[in-house]
């Protein structure tokens, strides 16, 4: 499975949700599918996309947060799985694209290429729902089930180590940061307004 095809297949589920991605291929490919103000691309600090997702999920429990992680990043912060599992935010979906490679920096193999099993580590860390989805169809199904489950889910998807044509994104880091910040603020306000309206009705 190509990661770009996988992203395209789940894009409709990402479109209106809060999304945090790691740097490199995942960010570039999601950006090229169509940037949205509710997408944040963590262009450094490898390993911390899931920690950011946890911070957002705990702060905005009424909204669903999707983290797009990778094997290289997750291996740098395996402790995040135990922390996610400890607090189990039901509004967080953690998707890990495992290409067994540090693709953006020369394609050197990661430990998943020699047997490290990220889904197994997630399960053993106590993540309540862990799925493996290695085809487009199973990924679409797993994502849609996870979003309906209201249960913290990690999905590990094996993908081919193929780079995007370009890693360039026409979006300065700080523009992304402030746009995302404003967007989350608007989402909270909209949510509060909808509750007020419901109560008044």
């Amino acid at each position: 499975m190509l990661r770009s095809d996988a992203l395209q297949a789940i894009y409709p589920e990402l479109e209106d949700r809060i999304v945090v991605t790691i740097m490199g291929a995942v960010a570039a490919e999601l950006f090229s599918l169509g940037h949205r103000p509710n997408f944040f691309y963590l262009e450094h600090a490898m390993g911390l996309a899931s920690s950011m997702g946890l911070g957002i999920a705990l702060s905005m429990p009424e909204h669903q947060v999707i983290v797009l992680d990778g094997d290289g990043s997750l291996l740098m912060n395996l402790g995040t799985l135990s922390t996610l599992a400890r607090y189990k935010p039901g509004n967080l979906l953690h998707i890990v694209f495992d290409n067994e490679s540090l693709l953006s920096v020369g394609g050197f193999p990661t430990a998943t290429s020699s047997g490290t099993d990220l889904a197994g580590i997630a399960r053993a860390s106590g993540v309540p729902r862990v799925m493996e989805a290695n085809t487009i169809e199973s990924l679409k199904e797993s994502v849609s089930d996870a979003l309906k489950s209201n249960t913290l889910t990690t999905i590990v998807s094996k993908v081919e180590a193929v780079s995007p044509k370009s890693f360039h994104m026409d979006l300065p880091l700080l523009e992304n940061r402030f746009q995302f910040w404003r967007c989350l603020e608007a989402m909270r306000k909209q949510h509060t307004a909808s509750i007020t309206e419901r109560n008044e009705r």
Partner: protein
Amino acid sequence: MPVSVTNSKLIYEALKACDVKIMSALPETWLVHLIRMADEDPDMTLVRLAKEEEGIGISAGAHLAGVNSAMLMQNHGFLAAINPIVSLALLYKIPLLMLISYRGHMGEKDPWQTQGGLTTESILRALNIPAWHLTNSNDIYRRLKDAQTLAHASLHPVAILLTRELMWED
């Protein structure tokens, strides 16, 4: 354990007055009462970390989601979190309120704490992170409030160094 309950309580109350809603922490002797207070407070989300690095991500997420957070860490935890402080907080202009127990400095008896103690302030300076020392209970409220105000105005991390004089009753 001669960790000051009175001063821990004043610090906790000041954090509440700063509308802090999420605290991340890793246990350390001087922080035990603060962590317990956060744990027992139904209005506080306490996130117990595996490593301090995660706390930078959690605080960044909370900030972007409009929630005030604080981090409780030992200075060795601050040292463990330097890369994300640089490549997340400084890079993306994220305010952080870091409460750092200042081990390994004046009065320290544990040899293993001393190298961290001797490098903490020079590393904060190298990162251009302003720091208040808390040595006196009368300063707690004002200095915490002012540190948070600066963090939000500058969109930059700030450090509060919790000193032995404040935290430890010999």
